């Protein structure tokens, strides 16, 4: 038998070679988002309506889903569970997924049940129930949306994270924080009228926020610890202490200091000691941002005559200019994936736009060249797929990296700026 086995294998191999090669290539005609249908939820309207609206907003924020207009549904609801839904009704309108929900009030608490299914097959993708005080149901929605993103498309979580920004209110600027979709926003640090609080930056673990404050009449750097709440001075050198940025893998922070007569970037530990100067060229060097592997630092410098983006190799201290387009390029931020840099770009028309490029400076692209509202101060989401930025109308927006329409996450009239997207809240 062993003598015949090679011969047998030859015959099998030849046979497979001779098998008919049936190859078909299908080329897409365009690009589209996954379509989600979501009829109204079952339960008390004071709870179901805002919950449904929050999920609708989160669906838009994802950048990969779009909600089918409920007016197109054969059954607009309420539909409390998948078992009550006829999937064919939603298949007819081209839905890829169906989300149903129900809320049951129990005193001050509420039980929220959410389900999601793939319409074509009826396969249940997500089925979760939450029991919480009724006034914080938004947290359950964040958890469900993160799980739905993972269960349906294998994407990373984004909604269980927070954004810190500067809010101008009552003649003063305060530190403001909210969840990624803009829910539960509140001021966390308030100064006296006339105080300025600027340039917030999250630590990699999400436990601290570094910021600049003029509380002492000088732009000083402070560290705000969330739990237990505590504010500590970090850098109070005479002159400028600004643009804080945490290093990704070390308990250190970078900032722009002018203590030596020129605005340069320094690295210090979280107590403010062990100062290490990184840039020495004349001109203003500011807005440091570090690659997730800690090898490179992107920053803004006007040493070339106008504010442009540069990249420093932290081991060799070699500097490479990355941007040459437009009038100015500033506020660079590294993607958590390390492959891209987003920044504020001023074009020839003098308008500010968010632009992105590859980490080596190639692939320059303005995201919304025709958007009426100007854009600045971008910050990446924890998974690197989305950006939050400040619009010239004073609101915060979230967008993807491919130019689709941004989603506004603030709407209470506050003038928001300098957002920073923090890590996932564990």
């Amino acid at each position, binding site marked *: 038998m062993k003598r015949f086995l090679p011969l047998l294998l030859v015959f099998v191999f030849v046979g497979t070679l001779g098998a008919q090669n049936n190859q078909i290539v299908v*080329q897409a005609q*365009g690009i589209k988002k*996954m379509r989600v249908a979501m009829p109204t939820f079952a339960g008390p309207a004071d709870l179901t309506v805002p919950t449904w609206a929050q999920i609708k907003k989160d669906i838009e924020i994802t950048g990969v889903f779009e909600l089918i207009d409920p007016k197109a549904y054969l059954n607009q609801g309420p539909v409390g569970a998948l078992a009550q839904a006829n999937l064919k009704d939603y298949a007819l309108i081209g839905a890829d997924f169906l989300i149903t929900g129900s809320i049951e009030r129990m005193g001050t608490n509420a039980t929220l049940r959410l389900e999601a299914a793939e319409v074509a097959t009826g396969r249940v993708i997500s089925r979760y129930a939450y029991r919480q005080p009724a006034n914080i149901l938004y947290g359950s929605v964040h958890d469900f949306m993160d799980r739905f993103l993972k269960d349906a498309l*294998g994407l990373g979580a984004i909604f269980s994270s927070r954004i810190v920004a500067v809010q101008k209110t009552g003649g003063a600027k305060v530190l403001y924080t909210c969840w990624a979709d803009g829910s539960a926003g509140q001021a966390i640090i308030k100064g006296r009228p006339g105080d300025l609080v600027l340039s917030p930056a999250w630590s990699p673990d999400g436990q601290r926020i570094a910021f600049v404050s003029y509380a002492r009449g000088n732009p000083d750097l402070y560290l705000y610890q969330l739990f237990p709440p505590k504010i500590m001075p970090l850098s109070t050198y005479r002159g400028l202490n600004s643009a804080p940025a945490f290093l990704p893998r070390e308990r250190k922070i970078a900032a722009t200091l002018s203590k030596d007569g020129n605005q340069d970037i320094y690295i210090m530990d979280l107590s403010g000691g062990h100062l290490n100067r990184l840039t020495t060229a004349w001109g203003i060097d500011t807005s440091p941002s570090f690659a997730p592997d800690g090898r490179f630092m992107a920053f803004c410098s006007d040493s070339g005559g106008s504010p442009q983006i540069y990249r420093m190799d932290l081991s060799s201290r070699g500097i490479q200019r990355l941007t040459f387009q437009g009038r100015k390029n500033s506020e660079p931020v590294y993607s958590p994936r390390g492959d891209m840099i987003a920044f504020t770009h001023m074009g020839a028309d003098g308008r500010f736009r968010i632009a992105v490029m590859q980490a080596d400076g190639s692939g320059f692209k303005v995201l919304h060249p025709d958007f009426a509202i100007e854009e600045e101060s971008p910050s990446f989401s924890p998974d690197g797929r989305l950006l939050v930025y400040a619009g010239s109308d004073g609101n915060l927006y979230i967008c993807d990296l491919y130019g689709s329409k941004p989603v506004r996450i603030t709407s209470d009239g506050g003038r928001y700026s300098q957002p920073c997207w923090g890590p996932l809240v564990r």
Partner: protein
Amino acid sequence: MKSLRVYVILSLFLHVAFFGAIIFTASRKPRPVYDIYDVSIVAAPAPGSQMQGRSVEPRPRVPSRAVKGFEQIAKAQAVKDKTPSFKPIDLENASGRSKAAEPPEMEEPEEQTSSAGAYPSAGPSAGARVKVNMWVAEVQATFRSVWQAPYGVPIKKDLKASFTIRVARNGEILSKRLLLGSGNALYDKSVELALNKIRKLPPPPIGGEAAADYTITFIPPAGS
């Protein structure tokens, strides 16, 4: 051993007999298809010549009109006397009728062209190819109706995901599996979701097979 010898001798005998029969059969004079008659084609002797030895009774007069058709030849032979004679027939007329009896020649079909491609002028293989091409175009249109490249993926021209589907003779998709991923989970998932929407394709041209496997490769839009 003794029995083996017997079998060998018997086998040799049968072989010899078999080949001998073949040779014998081949060597025999073939039976003529038609009766052979001795025909004297020389002119009749002059009266009073000594060659008139044997008197020959006048042969029955065969109708002088030209014999047309083999069946008429057989009838003419059937009315002859014991010493039949064979009157030569009008070969030209006979060949003309035989030509008419043959089935008419098939006209060459004209070559046709269409936007789908040139139709074959002849031959079954070219026609099968056309059927396959038409089926492929229908399948491509079917998939394009349910799938487009997804948002949220950096679209590059070398991005592609290949799935293997098993299609029954009636077009029903029996199974599907990812053969080669694109490297982007969202892109692969979008293809999988689109495939889930299709349960049946146009019946494939797979002949007598019960089912066949096809590899479908999904690529991004042109210009990416």
